């Protein structure tokens, strides 16, 4: 068989498989006009392709999906992995770890004894002042920017507040499907201080340099606090995905940067 013929026979397969370019298809058409054997092969392959395409797809067993999910072993969530990786080396040495436990036990005993003794006497003013002091500290965050989300698959808001060099974002989200949230920022200027999610356990949470991502489900409030270097005003890029599709992308912190905070 000549090299040319082999080339065109390959092209016939490529045509059937949708892998031939327009140029190749045009060349093939020209060649077929002069080679009846090649025409026959093309017709036979097309017929085979037709037969194979008529074969129905096999229905997957109805319970396959559930049985696979049930068989999956539990997987350690991200927060535990982070905690495990970030535990100091000292805690991995048993006698030091037990030493800490003993010290903690003694301290707890002392505190409980103190509380018991205090309860015998009337409450003092200092207890009340202490509680107020904590609240006052929390109120130092000032709301600077607000983002509304009003989409068929995602509703809610995000509020950015600042306290000194800390930025707090409160996500109040509501979606019928799980919402993936991604917060991007300048990782050289800031890092995560805390993450909290109310109503239900944290489903997924991931931190990389300059990116935080988490999942919110149903009606849920998530709070992210970032600590930045002194005087650094962070620009935060927020992305919201539902079912793997980007629903909204926006920034927060731009108004505060320009000095137009609420």
């Amino acid at each position: 068989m000549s090299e040319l013929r082999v080339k065109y026979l390959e092209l016939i397969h490529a045509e059937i498989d949708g892998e031939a370019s327009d140029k190749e298809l045009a060349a093939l058409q020209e060649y077929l006009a002069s080679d009846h054997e090649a025409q026959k092969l093309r017709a036979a392959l097309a017929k085979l392709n037709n037969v194979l395409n008529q074969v129905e797809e096999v229905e997957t067993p109805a319970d396959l999906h559930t049985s696979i999910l049930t068989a999956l072993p539990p997987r350690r969530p991200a927060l535990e992995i982070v905690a495990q990786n970030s535990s100091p080396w000292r805690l991995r040495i048993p006698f030091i770890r037990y030493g800490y436990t003993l010290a903690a036990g003694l301290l707890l005993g002392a505190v409980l004894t103190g509380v018991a003794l205090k309860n015998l006497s009337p409450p003092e003013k200092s207890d009340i002042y202490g509680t107020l002091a904590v609240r006052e500290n929390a109120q130092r965050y000032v709301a600077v920017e607000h983002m509304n989300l009003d989409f068929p698959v995602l509703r809610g808001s995000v509020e950015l507040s600042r306290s000194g060099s800390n930025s707090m974002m409160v996500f109040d989200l509501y979606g019928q499907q799980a919402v993936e949230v991604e917060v991007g920022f300048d990782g050289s200027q800031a890092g995560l201080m805390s993450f909290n999610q109310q109503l239900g356990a944290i489903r997924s949470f991931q931190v990389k340099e300059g990116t935080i991502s988490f999942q919110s489900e149903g009606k849920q409030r998530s709070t992210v606090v970032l600590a930045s270097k002194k005087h650094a005003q962070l620009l935060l890029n927020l992305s919201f995905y539902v079912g793997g599709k980007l629903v909204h992308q926006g920034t927060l912190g731009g108004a505060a940067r320009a000095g137009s905070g609420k």
Partner: protein
Amino acid sequence: MRATYCPHQLFFWCVVFMDDNEDLRLVSESRQGSRDSFERLLLRYEKPIFNAAYRILRDYEDARDVTQNVFLKAFQNLEHFNAKHRFFSWIYRIALNESINLSKSRRRFDAAEDARIEVRNTPENLLSRKELGEVVQAALMSLEFEHRVVIVLRHFNHRSYQQMGEILEIPEKTVKSRLFTARALLREILSGKGVL
């Protein structure tokens, strides 16, 4: 997975698989403990994997076992998945290995069964789609494993030459040559059964 029209494909609509980046994102989230993300990968691939396993093994229960093992192994070995590669290539490769192992342990192809579904090519004996499926399946089973696999990946899983090369870890040129030989053999068998 979405169906789209492929202008260069002669007769049929072909299937284009969703963005590989989406797979990588889901894998990354699954590694972090998100079962929802793994479930999405499962939703995306359980059907094609089950179908491939069924076409390779011709046994519904074996195909179910293979599919279950594939996803269990994938879940347990997510840390070993190299993000430089495509997720579908990795998971299909696991599926093919599982199918090879199972078919080696259960060599059950029965020539008598093959003979039973022989058909005559007469107009009054037109095959129903179900019967046609059985005949084609029997023909597939009489191919060598390496030929059967390329037919399954190309015609039942709609994989391109390049993707098949990635899954089978062979050059595209080898994919083509195997596929062309497999088609020639399949044509011969099906013509012998009166289907072509």
